[in-house]
């Protein structure tokens, strides 16, 4: 019995030893016989040197139907590096590399690098496609390594470039977000480096705690924006055309949902291609819509009017005597045509864009109330999720001279960023409530959870009645004045206001022949889905914003009505339920 048991034990041991030998044999073939092959394969998977396999979360546009389209993602391919110590024929190697790599070192630079025999690794070409990289690797050129790499890629190129932002090497040796959403949400988008190739068993043995409860999963993810790619494309195209047509210094535009603050499109011109930063002017990398302040001119008048209506110092029926020009603190303030209108109601101040009327309203409001309203509108940053937001320049409102309040009432002497401006004017569109403008709506965490960002903080500035009364005036402006009344859309109420401001001289004072044009509008007037702000800086050979921006504004309005199928809000017979109505 004992002998039989021993023989069984020996049989088991023999089996175990054979299994061990087989495993060792397999390891021998893997590591010794095919070692070089596997090492090369590993090299392609793990880039060595400084480039590394860059990993980073994505940023998404959101189409109107909710589909996500990448605004910033990763591209994968190959880089080419040489080992000057082992390269045998640099000239032949250069010919082979330059045949597949669209951008590589010049021949002279390549040969100079290959001659540096004290080096073992020099990167000579990047961003090769999979096919090109594998074809080059198949050549087996001595001293040439083809290594896997990934890099930041922006499918839209210049689309919303200044909002999306860029990544680059900062003070350290890692790629970090430098501008735009890339910078604001860098903590969400950046990766610790081991997440992609995490080894479960290695983690199990070394750090079981982080495997079970990974803190990184709670904050690493992708950013979902409110930017609609087709609307963004349209706005960007329109703004570029305005800028080119009038040879402006720069132009910009924002389309926002006034009820939520969600920015649907935001652009400025000139801009840049995010995939090609080599020759980009560094001043373009910021976002002028949040960083630069301007004196916006008469689009400030609706805010002056709503403030006075809200304070109860005027009503829509209030009249004043418009003399065409007034003198305040020894300064002359005139209407755009210097003509007197006589005794007219408040609405005419908006319809005819009368500076004397806006000054009269500011005087009725009083300095303290005027300062209080405008400080509430512009005194704080908007909190938009873009870096380097600028402060409004409101120092004139701390002066005792009435002329500073009068000029501020029609948008001169105080300066704001375009984002601050659309936020403030959005309060009129949104029943007197100011919202938080924002570009990101949610963060999709790597854990699988989608965390909706909270932008619900609102501030009531005006009463709903005051906002409604000003909206009525702005709607009448579109229906009766804009393009001589031809801009009216019978089935859609649209509220708007133009603005033309004189540009400031560097040494003080204002140019008489250089202007800043602005345009704001929202629709449907009494339950708006969109508010649009446009501007163009120093357009040439044209004086008024009604000449430069009205057709662009109307083009955007018609585009948005069509694209979002915004239903008519007027001009339909009350009994009509399904028949179409005609619009010009």
């Amino acid at each position, binding site marked *: *019995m004992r002998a039989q048991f021993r023989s069984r034990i020996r049989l088991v041991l023999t089996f175990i030893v054979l299994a061990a030998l087989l495993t060792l044999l397999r390891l021998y073939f893997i590591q010794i016989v095919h070692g070089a092959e596997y090492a090369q394969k590993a090299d392609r*998977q793990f880039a060595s040197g400084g480039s590394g396999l860059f990993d980073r979360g994505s940023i998404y546009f959101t189409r109107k139907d909710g589909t996500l389209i990448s605004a910033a*993602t990763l591209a994968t391919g190959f880089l080419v590096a040489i080992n000057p110590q082992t390269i045998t024929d640099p000239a032949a190697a250069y010919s082979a590399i330059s045949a597949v790599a669209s951008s590589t070192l010049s021949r002279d630079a390549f040969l100079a690098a290959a001659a540096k025999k004290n080096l073992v690794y020099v990167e000579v070409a990047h961003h090769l496609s999979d096919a090109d990289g594998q074809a080059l690797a198949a050549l087996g050129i001595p001293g040439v390594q083809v290594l896997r790499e*990934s890099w930041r890629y922006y*499918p839209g190129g210049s689309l919303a470039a200044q909002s999306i932002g860029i990544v680059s090497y900062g003070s350290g040796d890692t790629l970090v977000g430098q501008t735009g959403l890339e910078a604001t949400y860098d903590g969400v988008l950046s990766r610790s480096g081991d997440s992609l190739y*995490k080894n479960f*068993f290695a983690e199990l043995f070394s750090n079981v705690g982080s495997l079970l409860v990974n803190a990184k999963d709670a904050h690493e993810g992708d950013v979902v924006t409110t930017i609609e790619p087709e609307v963004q*494309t*349209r706005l960007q195209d329109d703004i570029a055309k305005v800028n080119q047509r009038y040879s402006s210094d720069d132009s910009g535009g924002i389309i926002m949902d006034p009820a939520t603050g969600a920015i649907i499109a935001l652009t400025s011109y000139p801009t840049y291609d995010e995939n090609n930063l080599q020759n980009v002017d560094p001043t373009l990398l910021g976002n002028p819509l949040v960083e630069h302040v301007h004196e916006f001119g008469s689009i400030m008048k609706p805010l002056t009017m709503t403030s006075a209506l809200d304070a109860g110092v005027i009503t829509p029926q209030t009249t004043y005597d418009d003399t065409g020009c007034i003198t305040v603190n020894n300064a002359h303030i005139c209407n755009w045509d210097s003509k007197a209108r006589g005794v007219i109601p408040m609405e005419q101040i908006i319809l005819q864009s009368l500076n004397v009327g806006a000054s009269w309203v500011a005087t009725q409001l009083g300095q303290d109330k005027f300062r209080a309203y405008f400080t509430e509108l512009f005194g704080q940053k908007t909190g938009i999720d873009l870096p380097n937001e600028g402060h409004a320049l409101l120092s004139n409102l701390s002066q005792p001279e009435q002329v500073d309040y009068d000029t501020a009432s029609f948008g001169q002497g105080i300066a704001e960023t375009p984002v601050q401006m659309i936020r403030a004017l959005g309060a009129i569109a949104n029943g007197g409530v100011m919202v938080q403008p924002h570009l990101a709506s949610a963060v999709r965490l790597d854990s699988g959870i989608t965390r909706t960002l909270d932008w619900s903080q609102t501030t009531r500035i005006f009463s709903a009645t005051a906002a409604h009364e000003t909206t009525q005036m702005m709607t009448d402006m579109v229906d009766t004045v804009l393009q001589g009344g031809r801009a009216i859309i019978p089935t859609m109420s649209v509220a708007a206001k133009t603005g033309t401001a004189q540009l400031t001289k560097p040494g003080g004072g204002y140019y008489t022949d250089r202007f800043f044009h602005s345009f704001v509008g929202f629709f449907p007037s009494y339950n708006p889905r969109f508010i649009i702000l446009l501007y163009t800086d120093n357009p040439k050979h044209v004086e008024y914003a009604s000449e430069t921006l009205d057709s662009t504004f109307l083009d955007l309005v018609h585009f948005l009505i069509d694209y979002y199928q915004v239903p008519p809000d007027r001009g339909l017979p009350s009994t009509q339920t399904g028949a179409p109505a005609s619009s010009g």
Partner: protein
Amino acid sequence: MHNLRLSFISLTSGAVGVLLVVYIGLIAVVMSYAALTVEFSQSVKNDEAAVAVLEAHYLASVASVTDTNYLAEGYAAPSAQLFVPARSVTALR
């Protein structure tokens, strides 16, 4: 039962053999798992990059359509636009 006594040497040899095989097997599994993880991760990244190329085509198409001047292409501007009123969202309205 008394006949089933094993020598100390045999017992430890067996245990060492088992442990050796388990150890080598574990190394093999870990290496295989790591290789598969890398391969799958890279595969996912490659697919995402391929999707990004398609998205770039889509955005380029949108830009092309937006930039097209249809009047210059020979199309006539519409003489009128029709807007259809929104349907009631409730049956009672």
